[in-house]
């Protein structure tokens, strides 16, 4: 989803957002990241892709409304409202549709992800390109059968001096990095083709 020209972010409108988030600039930056992360997850979990571009488009619109002088009492609620509106525009329909009416959609990765052999090669290359400790952590995390995983992950968390959730978050960041690498690798291979 590309950023709409009329809602494009300006330094002035972004400044208004930062001021509204918190009077202290450092805390405001943290709040901004927290808001953006929430928006990314909103679009991700609602199936709107790419989620980070949708989140940026939401922030652009939010900043524009602030610049226009729109009265906003609860900034997060307002951001959520804009996000839902944007989601509806993207989906061109209601947020929910009965499962029986849902189309039987293909479940394999789409053509934009390249042929299976290419994805496989890119995955191996990207996994090998991870820093050794990240690669070891993520492979250890997914090691073992279903019944072993819980104990295995507790052991990993203890060894890393973390609780379960921070460990999972760290693994997710590694996984996201891997996904981006594979996507870029496949796109690069397609460009050369």
């Amino acid at each position, binding site marked *: 989803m590309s950023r709409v020209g009329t809602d494009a972010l300006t330094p002035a409108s972004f400044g208004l957002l930062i001021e509204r988030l918190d009077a202290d600039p450092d805390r405001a930056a943290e709040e901004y990241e927290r*808001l953006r*992360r929430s928006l990314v997850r909103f679009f991700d979990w609602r199936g709107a892709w*790419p989620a980070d571009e949708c989140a940026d488009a939401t922030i652009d619109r939010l900043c524009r409304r602030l610049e226009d002088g729109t009265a906003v009492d609860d900034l997060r609620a307002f951001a*959520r409202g804009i996000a839902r509106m944007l989601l509806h525009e993207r989906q061109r329909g209601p947020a929910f549709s009965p*499962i029986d009416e849902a189309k039987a959609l293909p479940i394999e990765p*789409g053509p934009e992800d390249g042929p299976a052999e290419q994805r*496989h090669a890119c*995955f191996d290359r990207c996994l090998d390109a991870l820093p050794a400790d990240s690669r070891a952590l993520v*492979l250890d995390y997914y090691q073992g059968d279903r019944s072993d995983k819980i104990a295995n992950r507790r052991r990993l968390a203890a060894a890393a001096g973390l609780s379960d959730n921070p460990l*999972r978050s760290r693994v997710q960041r590694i996984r996201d990095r891997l996904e981006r690498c594979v996507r870029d690798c496949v796109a690069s291979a397609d460009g050369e083709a």
Partner: protein
Amino acid sequence: MSADPQTARRYLLRETSEEESLEIEREYFADQRVQEAIATAEDTLIEDYLDGALAGDERTRFERTYLASAGHRRRVDTIRRLQQAASTRGTAPSVDQVAIKERRSGRITSGRALALALAATVVLAAGVATWMRSGSHRESTPPVSSAGHDASAPRATEAAPRVFAFTVPRMTLRGAADEAALVIPPDTAIVRLEIGIDAAARDITRGAIRSVEGNDVWDGPVRVTTGAPAGTVASLDVPAARLRPDDYIITVTTAERVEAGRYALHVRAR
């Protein structure tokens, strides 16, 4: 919502009402811990799907809603690949790695199809025997009890049928089965399909194999063994001639005919 895993799962599968979803979103926008709880529920949901642990309706819903998004399909594919890489690159021994098991009266060579380069020898598994019967489209193998009693065991003077064991991967994401395909070595009489299952699923007794077009290929008993390095394993001994190059669905059921798991199998030409 307060980070309730079941509600999070319902939200991810779009089973929550509009009002419930609004409340969940309000909570996770305000509280990072709620967000992390939903992210954890998402990871669990994906791994349950890849492990074949989602019940029929939930699996259908997952495939039709969660996997409707390209980003989610990539995520599931990445986790599937990480699980496979972990089992092949990991330090702990796993059933996917090449292993030689010595039995009382023969040797069974087990390994992934990609390890076919290793020499396969004539094998005989004590207590297991299957004959190929000509002229019938669909047959069951002779009953084999997990206690080892087998009334149809071959006589010592008969040639031992060659058995090739293959570990059916856990992944169930269609479109990626070709990466863990079974190539049956020449002169193989029996293909032993080994499936890692939950210890709680030990009451599995029967298995059935059907082509993706719906044609019945085989059905017969399942032998469940516990205590192996791989945990609890369900084994199906299938005549090799039944498994032509094609895509198949393996279903395992309990004695009460309740489905306990479903796995994809891709057989490639030699």
